[in-house]
């Protein structure tokens, strides 16, 4: 926290417009719009993938063709025209760099604007970065240090080349191709993403971090992430993203699969700050993400997310608690402002005995936005002594926004203990006046109240991320009251 002062915050608050709204002119190689088997094959070829991978993609594409876009989420938007999207875009030269000096200076400047200068990140945080600009990894750092521990952290494209046996074994095992419309689409056309493997008994010594960025006008972003924590291992994975402001809607349909084998633990943290559209609700990213983790015996998966961006969000990081004594956690802050719409939550599927899950969801709605929590707690017949605790809190700002909670509970074992708590509150003028009276201006007062409201979740984030998340919350709600 020491790095971040209130002066920094003040500077941040001065920026009324989306502050990461700039565009980097890196020459791209972009496929023509549209999607068919040839495009799927071309993507696979472009990436020099083995035959099995190409076939896997084609299978997904065929499944996808017969599926329809889901309309059950509590969001309204114009459905994307999937034939008007280009499904591949890569920076035109993609040499692998050993040092940052070799990286395209324009790209580095982009990172600088984002405040994530690799150099600084490397030194300060001990964070290894697998940076994804558009769809292809351009720089991978700390790989060597990680390699000494046997940890594999690379782009999924590289992993398909270098560790096909691991990818083949786990890809699609948690989120199968046919899982849902967007997962199928992603499986067919995923451009790149990250792969991480932690060997047996290894505790990953640093936070693994990926920064995503959508960079080409009209290019869908289809990231694929696969994290495998072998028996008794531990990893903390950070995912954060920003995007340039743009008028047309940008589609993002990522898939993240986590596999925690026996006694393993995965902590997966996300700060999502994609372009939410302007104050009239024009533009903004569509974020339709499938995130799911599988826990074997005694394993634990913890999802923490701070969602401030995107025009439309549709996202349910989930845990399948397959093994006995497995633990699933979901901590979420979702902020919507202006015309943003978010339908987000989690699914906790209890299959094993003595499985435990915790859900803490904090929704903050401002402007004319709609914020929905949707969660499922499912206890299977053989899940003896399963326990769940859910807490869903909503904070409203102003009179034109909405907060909705859709909790689903299915318990098929009588020994289950399920608790659900929910609150809805509003930032009151009395709270603001109280702060004002103590010399705290309204903007700062809102930040204080919102941070207090979100504290339980912010505390779950790694320190560096917590600072960033706190700033994001404040920026996202800037000007929403008064």
């Amino acid at each position: 926290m020491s790095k971040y002062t209130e002066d920094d915050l003040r500077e941040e608050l001065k920026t009324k417009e989306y502050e990461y709204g700039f565009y980097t002119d890196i020459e791209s190689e972009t496929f023509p719009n549209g999607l068919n088997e040839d495009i799927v094959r071309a993507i696979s070829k472009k990436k020099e993938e083995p035959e099995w991978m190409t076939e896997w993609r084609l299978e997904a594409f065929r499944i996808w063709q017969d599926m329809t876009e889901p309309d059950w989420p509590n969001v309204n938007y114009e459905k994307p025209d999937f034939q008007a999207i280009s499904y591949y875009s890569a920076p035109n030269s993609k040499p692998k760099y050993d040092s940052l000096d070799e990286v395209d200076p324009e790209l580095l400047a982009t990172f600088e604007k984002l405040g994530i200068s690799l150099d600084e990140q490397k030194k300060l945080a001990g964070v290894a970065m697998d940076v994804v600009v558009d769809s292809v990894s351009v720089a991978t750092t700390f790989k060597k240090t990680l390699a000494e521990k046997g940890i594999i952290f690379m782009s999924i494209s590289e992993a398909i080349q270098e560790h096909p046996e691991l990818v083949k074994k786990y890809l699609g095992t948690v989120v199968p191709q046919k899982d849902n419309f967007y997962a199928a689409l992603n499986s067919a056309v995923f451009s790149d993403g990250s792969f991480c493997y932690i060997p047996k008994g290894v505790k990953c010594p640093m936070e693994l971090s990926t920064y995503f960025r959508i960079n080409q006008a009209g290019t869908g972003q289809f990231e694929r992430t696969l994290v495998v924590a072998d028996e008794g291992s531990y990893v903390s994975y950070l995912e954060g993203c920003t995007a340039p402001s743009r008028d047309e809607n940008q589609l993002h349909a990522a898939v993240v699969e986590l596999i925690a084998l026996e006694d393993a633990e995965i902590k997966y943290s996300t700060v999502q700050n994609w372009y939410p559209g302007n104050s009239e609700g024009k533009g903004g990213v569509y974020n339709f993400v499938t995130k799911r983790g599988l826990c074997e015996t005694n394993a634990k998966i913890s999802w923490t997310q701070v969602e401030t961006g995107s025009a439309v969000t549709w996202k349910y990081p989930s845990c399948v608690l397959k093994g006995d004594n497995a633990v699933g956690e979901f901590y979420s802050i979702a902020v919507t402002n202006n015309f943003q719409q978010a339908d987000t939550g989690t699914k906790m599927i209890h299959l094993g005995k003595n499985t435990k899950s915790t859900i803490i969801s904090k929704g903050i709605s401002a402007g004319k936005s709609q914020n929905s929590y949707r969660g499922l707690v499912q206890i299977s017949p053989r899940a003896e002594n399963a326990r769940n605790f859910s807490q869903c809190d909503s904070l409203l700002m102003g009179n034109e926004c909405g907060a909705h909670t859709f909790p689903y509970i299915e318990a098929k074992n009588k020994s289950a203990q399920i608790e659900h708590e929910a609150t809805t509150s509003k930032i009151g003028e009395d709270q603001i006046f109280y702060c004002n009276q103590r010399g705290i201006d309204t903007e700062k007062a809102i930040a204080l109240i919102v941070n207090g409201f979100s504290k339980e979740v912010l505390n779950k984030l790694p320190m560096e991320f917590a600072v960033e998340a706190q700033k994001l919350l404040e920026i996202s709600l800037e000007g929403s009251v008064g």
Partner: protein
Amino acid sequence: MLKINNLHASVEDKAILRGINLDIKPGEVHAIMGPNGSGKSTLASVVAGKEDYEVNEGEILLDGENIDELGAEERAHKGVFLSFQYPVEIPGVSVTNFIKTAINETRKAKGLEDMPANEMLKLIREKSQMLEIDRKFLSRSLNEGFSGGEKKRNEIFQMAMLEPKLAILDETDSGLDIDALRIVANGVNKLKSKDNAVVVITHYQRLLDYIVPDHVHVLMNGKIVKSGGAELAHELEAKGYDWIKEEVNA
């Protein structure tokens, strides 16, 4: 220090203050008493700058400067402090974090750097000891689940931390048992100096046994109908307000 001239204020077109005049000098303690609904809390809120109230006439001068147009936080920066009758809860924000923010925002407004952490801690320790506040209390969420007495003690703790020029205590004695009342009153007395002033708003004379006022004003129907010394409070305690009503009507 605080001069109020012919102040008229209303909320939603309902006139509440109907021509208040007050002159408070540095080093003085003024008590404002009066029956329910006479406008005591409104007066406190208007001076503090609550937006719900409209000032229709008159002026509020702080050190000769008209503060009518200033926002509540700007008035706070100039040293106006209001101890609330009903302090609000802010879940997840600790007492320490809140007061730290308040102090640093005020310093920032004056062009000062943030107070160094060690200095802040020292100040917190000193003031919490003075008010016999348990250290554990400081890490609790602001006013959340506080008893009436804890809330009031916390208000005075904040006052002690902020060292205001003008402190308005709105019904600070309500909800306090006799021990808490004494602690709070002692706190206020220790903070008193020749440079600051205190306005005590209260129903009862009880608090004034501990915080002895130089002037007592009786507020009725939005007007100060009688002023006097500390003895006036005793008279009110003994005789109630009716005799003043009669006096006014006569």
